Every structure is written in structure tokens, then in C-alpha cells.
């Protein structure tokens, strides 16, 4: 074997061991501020109210709705199938299990967007995948889905289609009335959790 061969093999062994070592002090479960900023700038973390409505109507099995308002508010009104996890209890172990999985697309909502954004940031920082926010929260839900308005200045095909959809959705969700019986929701058993097996820290490749 030539000296060059030995040198290359030695070099590769050293870098290989370096790689193994770097794995140990690299915590991939956390998201760096850099990545967090990138994700915050992007609009991909939002589900529009229409997306949520479509998913509920079509009974999308991958949708998991999380209501982060207080239990009182949840009992008064919430979305169909939503699970109540108040923001202050977000970091409880039994609640985190709802987010620490990669089966469902978790959509968080509150009254507006800001509380959901806080929850989204905490969960993303924890490294959980498929966490989304309902854009505008329940206020937007009421405005867009339950009581849709249509008063365009100029006729716009897109706007009209959107309005048609909203009108249909409004009918489906019993529009006009914002009161849906929360008790009915509360009595509904929580979705069975599919817990993700805790894996060892894998590399960057998720």
C-alpha cells in the first residue's frame, strides 16, 4: 500500500471520528435562533381559516386542532374536534405528547393570532414538526366562515370563489350563530395518541 493511500485512510478515519464526536455535543432537538427567524418570516406556518374549514368538512384524518384558550372559553365555543390545552399548561408533560409526534398536522388557534404564535414558537423551539397556526384565530373564523361578507369594489373571480366557499362553509358550521355547544365537544373522547418512539439524536436528517 502506498504512503498516499495510508495518509488518505488516516485522514478519513480522523474526520470520521471527529464526526462521531461532533454528534455527541450537537443537540438536534433544539432549533437555533437563526432557523427560528427563518421560519418566522415564512408564511408557511399559517393555516387559513378556509384551510381549517376544508379539513374539518372533509374530515381530514391528519388534522389535529388545539385550542389554547382557557377551559372556560373552550367550553363556550370551539371548533369541531378541537382539544383544549391552555397556553399556561402547554409545557406539561402529558400535553406535550400531543405535539411530539409526526402523524398529525397540529393546528393551534386562540382568539387572535398572537397567543398561538407564542405557543408555535415554544413548540418549534422544542423541535416539534408539523405545527401550524390558524391565521387570525377564532376572530377570523367568525368573520370569514360563520359570517362571511362580500362587498367588492370591483368584481374579482377569486374573491367571488372565496366568498362562495365561505358561504357554503358557513352553512355547514351553522353560520350566524357563534354558539356551538362546548359540552358536546368536551364529552368527546380525546383522540388516541400515537406516541412517537423517542429516538436517539439523529443527524440533521430528520
Amino acid at each position, binding site marked *: 500500500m502506498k504512503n498516499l493511500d495510508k495518509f488518505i485512510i488516516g485522514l478519513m478515519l480522523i474526520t470520521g471520528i471527529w*464526526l*462521531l464526536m461532533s454528534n455527541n455535543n450537537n443537540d438536534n432537538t433544539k432549533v437555533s435562533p437563526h432557523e427560528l427567524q427563518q421560519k418566522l418570516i415564512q408564511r408557511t406556518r399559517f393555516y387559513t381559516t378556509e384551510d381549517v374549514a376544508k379539513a374539518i368538512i372533509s374530515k381530514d384524518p391528519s388534522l389535529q386542532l388545539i385550542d389554547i384558550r382557557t377551559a372556560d372559553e373552550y367550553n363556550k365555543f370551539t371548533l369541531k374536534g378541537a382539544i383544549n390545552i391552555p397556553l399556561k399548561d402547554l409545557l406539561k408533560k402529558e400535553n406535550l405528547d400531543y405535539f411530539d409526534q409526526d402523524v398529525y398536522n397540529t393546528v393551534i388557534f386562540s382568539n387572535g393570532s398572537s397567543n398561538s404564535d407564542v405557543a408555535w414558537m415554544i413548540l418549534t423551539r422544542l423541535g416539534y414538526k408539523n405545527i401550524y397556526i390558524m391565521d387570525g384565530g377564532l376572530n377570523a373564523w367568525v368573520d370569514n366562515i360563520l359570517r362571511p361578507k362580500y362587498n367588492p369594489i370591483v368584481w374579482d373571480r377569486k374573491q367571488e370563489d372565496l366568498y362562495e366557499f365561505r358561504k357554503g362553509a358557513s352553512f355547514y358550521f351553522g353560520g350566524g350563530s357563534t354558539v356551538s355547544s362546548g359540552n358536546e365537544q368536551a364529552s368527546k373522547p380525546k383522540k388516541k395518541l400515537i406516541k412517537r418512539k423517542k429516538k436517539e439524536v439523529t443527524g440533521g436528517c430528520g
Partner: protein
Amino acid sequence: MGPLFPQELISDPLNLFIAIFIGIGFGIGLEAGGFTNTRKLAGVFYGYDFVVLKVFFTAALTGAIGLFLMDSYGLIDINLTFYPKTFWIPTLIAGIVMGLGFILGGFCPGTSICAASTGKIDGIAFVGGVFIGIFGYAFTYESLFQNLRSKGGLGKANIAEKLGMSNELFIFIVLIIAIIAFIVVDKIQKRVNEKKPVEKIEELGL
């Protein structure tokens, strides 16, 4: 920070411009390594020259170790790099075709273009064959290949994940296998060349 192109940190023309220089470097490397000679590639199958195997193993491991090291130090986000989906049936068939082409022609696509540009007639003929293959595939795609193409889809297959180990550990195991392979093929090469010496390419003056 990286990868540069998928995050639109560099523009499309600049990306192509950089690619030209990388391509030139690759071509010079292939020519300097003697890869434009068919005997070099065919040598792997006859057992008198294993440089090709060593080069490709080294290249793959350098790429893997380098990327994951950069990933663990935050220089590149490995999740944003291109990760093709695996379709094992067409891959297997194409692998057989490619292997046969290696033995029969003595070139792989890259080296054939290098050889053609250095004026080797067999290289030019091989490139002609490559183009016949490309057009042949394109014109018979719908009738012959459309169904085959999506057979045996495995999604984004990651062996390390399937085996439940970290990517870093998996790369290290491949590295050990590569080093063992280097030593074994060196022994085979020595034995074959002692029994029936093949003139070195340099000595033939090709």
C-alpha cells in the same frame, strides 16, 4: 447558512457559473486520474486495477463526512439538500444496465464525455450511444417506461433511520467497511498482477 441555492442566497445564473468551474475541476481530475482510459474502469471487473472503486468510495465518504460535519456546526442545513425518493425496482434495473455498460464500454457517463473531449474515438462512440439512449428513452417513455418508473416506491429511504442509528454512526460504519475494502482489493490487485501482469496505462503511452 447553506445550502446556498435552495435558500436563494445565490441567483440561478451564479449557481450555473459556479457549476461550470466545479465541472471543469471534475473533468481535469478525471483526466489526471487516468479515468478517460477504458482500461482503468474495466480493471475493477478484471481485478488488475481498483483505483475507480477507491476513488468513488473516497468521494462518497468525503461528501458524507463533510456535509454532516458542516451540518453539526451549523454551516449547512442538511434537510434542505436534495434528497431523492427511492424506487427500488427501476433503480435495480438501471443499475444492471449501467454495470453492463461499464464492463462493455469501459466508461461511465462522466468519463465518456472526458474521453470524447480528449479525442478518443471510443469515447466519442460511447457519447453517441448515450444520446441514442436518452432520445430512445424519451420517445418510448409513455409506452414502455411510464409504469416502471414509479414501481417499488419507498419514499425518502434512510437506511440509518431504518436501522435505528444516527447518521453519523452509519457513516462511520461505512467508512470502516471502505477501509477494509481498500485493504482487500489491494491484496487482490497484487495477486492478479503477479500472476498475469497487465501493462500499466502509462507504459502503453495511451
